């Protein structure tokens, strides 16, 4: 008889572990209540959590809502604030006024008409972003993406969160153990016990004895204790494409508790990398991600301090090594890796948590009924994840290849040898036709849809040939969407409160569930 898959064992109590536990437990709640399914999370009482990622994707709203988490609680317990995308400053020329948005809203009428060629023909001199979505204007003014009367998880303008990753994992943990029936075991894994077929049979722990399971999820971070170490799956570096290998982070206090709080991530290019600047209600998280081959730590720290200004005085940066890349396989035998254990990429587009969500969801939705069908699901999972990681690497690289900055780091980035073939082909193609719906970004859960490529390409001044008159067929439709966008922008600017103001109100009054 084939062995049914009933007991899921997750190792690692960071963001990846608890989110995965929550997603799986919420999806299989009925079976857990009947007692025919269990989710156990083993967390070492001795290993500190890395707490990666203060930036998230809008997907997190759905993920948390499905788990039954209250959004009001998220704001109150995780120091959360709204994020409406990112602004990339000085990435193209390095000039003071050089910048563009990658917002979270799709261009108006995205499924109906591609506005890119119409914008290219348009001679009003507006940025692509401002022509097709109100979100850049909302970010310019530090406005929230909703109001206090908008229900939990619903948006007026699409949004994600900035949050304190150190508070997020314990917050999700509490929900998982109190509401979703996840078993929490505090213990150090000593040995991974293998079966003859190469599966993991059980784990021997120091404090809790032997724990057996049918499916093991490796959320042990960079160590990748199960998939990497026990099952010997190798790591595939991507430092030939993405050069940054170090981050230096600081937590910067606001000048006053009432200082404006940006409702987007500010990503600013420097001589050998870029800084993130994330506004939480209590502090800013700022960090320099750089290539140690192009700049020394001391120089990097000097640039970081220069960027932050007087507020950096007296602060000590925390240095974090970055190893960009991913496991050669993500699911092998009865072991699947999620989070840092599966790989890591520089946080340029906040891909860490969204990758956890997508992986956890796929595992939860495709939970194999028994060991006999697990390999089929595993193959599918690996296929999807190879695709995802590849596309994210391409998309991150896109931010670098279009630069005109003169520094060596940036020039090295434009070297064709460092550009993946697929991206190279697309860039060639897009010289003659702008990306849109019918491009090959056709997966149901595409991390970066064609719209994201549009925002980056045309934000950075990419040239696509459009002959006058070629688009007359859709001209009136395009004009009406552009006008609609201008009207919507005017309306939202008067209706939406400031980001900080709304977050304060949520702390005080809460958001309604409907």
């Amino acid at each position, binding site marked *: 008889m084939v062995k049914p898959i009933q007991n899921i064992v997750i190792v690692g109590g960071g963001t990846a572990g608890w989110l995965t536990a929550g997603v799986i437990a919420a999806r299989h709640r009925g079976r857990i209540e009947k007692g025919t399914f269990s989710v156990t999370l083993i967390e070492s009482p001795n290993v500190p959590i890395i707490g990666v990622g203060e930036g998230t994707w809008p997907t997190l709203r759905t993920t948390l809502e499905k788990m039954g988490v209250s959004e009001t609680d998220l704001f109150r317990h995780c120091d959360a604030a709204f994020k409406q995308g990112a602004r990339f400053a000085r990435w193209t020329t390095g000039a003071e006024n050089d910048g563009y948005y990658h917002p979270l809203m799709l261009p108006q009428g995205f499924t109906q008409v591609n506005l890119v060629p119409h914008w290219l023909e348009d001679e009003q001199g507006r940025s692509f972003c401002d022509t097709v979505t109100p979100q850049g204007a909302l970010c310019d003014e530090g406005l929230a993406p909703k109001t206090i*009367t908008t229900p939990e998880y619903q948006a007026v303008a699409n949004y994600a969160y900035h949050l304190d990753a150190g508070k997020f994992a314990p917050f999700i943990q509490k929900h998982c153990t109190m509401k979703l029936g996840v078993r929490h075991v505090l213990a150090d894994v000593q040995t991974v016990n293998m079966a003859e077929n190469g599966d993991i049979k059980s784990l021997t722990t120091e404090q809790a004895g032997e724990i057996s399971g049918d499916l093991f999820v490796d959320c042990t971070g960079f160590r990748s204790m199960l998939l990497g170490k026990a099952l010997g799956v190798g790591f595939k570096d991507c430092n030939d494409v993405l050069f940054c290998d170090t981050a230096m982070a600081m937590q910067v206090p606001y000048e006053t508790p009432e200082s404006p709080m940006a409702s987007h991530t500010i990503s600013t290019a420097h001589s050998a990398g870029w800084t993130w600047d994330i506004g939480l209600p209590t502090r800013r998280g700022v960090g320099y991600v750089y290539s140690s081959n192009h700049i020394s730590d001391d120089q990097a720290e000097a640039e970081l301090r220069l960027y932050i200004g007087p507020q950096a005085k007296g602060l000590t940066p925390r240095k974090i090594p970055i190893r960009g890349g991913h496991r050669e396989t993500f699911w092998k035998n009865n072991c699947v890796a999620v989070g840092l254990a599966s790989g890591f990429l520089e946080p340029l587009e906040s891909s860490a948590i969204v990758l956890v969500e997508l992986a956890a969801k796929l595992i939860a939705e495709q939970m194999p009924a028994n060991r006999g069908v697990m390999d089929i699901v595993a193959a599918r999972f690996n296929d999807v994840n190879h695709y995802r990681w590849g596309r994210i690497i391409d998309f991150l690289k896109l931010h670098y290849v279009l630069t005109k900055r003169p520094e060596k780091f940036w020039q090295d980035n434009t070297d064709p040898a460092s550009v993946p073939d697929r991206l190279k082909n697309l860039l060639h193609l897009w010289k003659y036709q702008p990306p849109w719906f019918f491009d090959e970004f056709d997966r149901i859960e595409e991390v970066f849809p064609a719209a994201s490529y549009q925002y980056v390409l045309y934000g950075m001044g990419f040239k696509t040939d459009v002959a006058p008159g070629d688009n007359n067929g859709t001209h009136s439709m395009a004009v009406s969407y552009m006008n609609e966008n201008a009207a919507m922008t005017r309306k939202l600017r008067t209706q939406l409160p400031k980001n900080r103001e709304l977050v304060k109100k949520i702390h005080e*009054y809460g958001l*309604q569930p409907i």
Partner: protein
Amino acid sequence: MTNVALLNNHDHRALRVQAGASARYGDNQRFVAVILGEFPHLVAHYPILLTKDQNTGAFFAGAMLGFDEGENLFLDERGMETYRPLNLQRGPFFTAGTEVAIDLDSPRVAAGGKPLFTEQGEPTQYLQSIMALFRDLKPGLEMTKTFVESLVGLKLVEPIDIDLAFDDGSKRKLTGLYTVNQQVLSALPDATVVDLFRKGYLQLIYLMMASLKQVPVLARRKNDALLKPSAQLAGA
């Protein structure tokens, strides 16, 4: 602007207050917050709905008196013949702790109105009626808040969109209004239903649902007002 003072028979001995319903004095409201004790009076005339406080996002119960901003379809030159919600009746008065306060800048504070104190400094019958009103209104607001929170907690609240087309060709789309979801109510577990019944909530819920029948009645009133030439909106 408001200029609120605690009411006393020294400073305010000679004050007079216009008590009647009139647009000039602020009865021209399309949606007025109400308390549970008023539901039986309200259901005979108005839809009882929930909406959100624009400042806090919190739900509160109210009576719908009109469709457009500043429109009370029950108000005419003679005042309001139907039940007048307490929040309109209270006029320029508020409570501050256990005391009564008054907005001295309210247009209601005017010559020709009703006196508040006798020459001896005793509260007049009118002021006594206001004090009695607050004895209902103040705890009533708390009880109503608890009731509304229970509805939200039980997921009984659902948005209701009201689309209206009038004979003059104009249309109204009202959003931001909420009522009780009948299906969720029917599916509640027995213990919860008994609990709602014992608290007196079940009856209130049914009054809210029944009051929805007042929406078309209200719309007819509006339609008549729109078609009536010159005699434009009531009380204006």
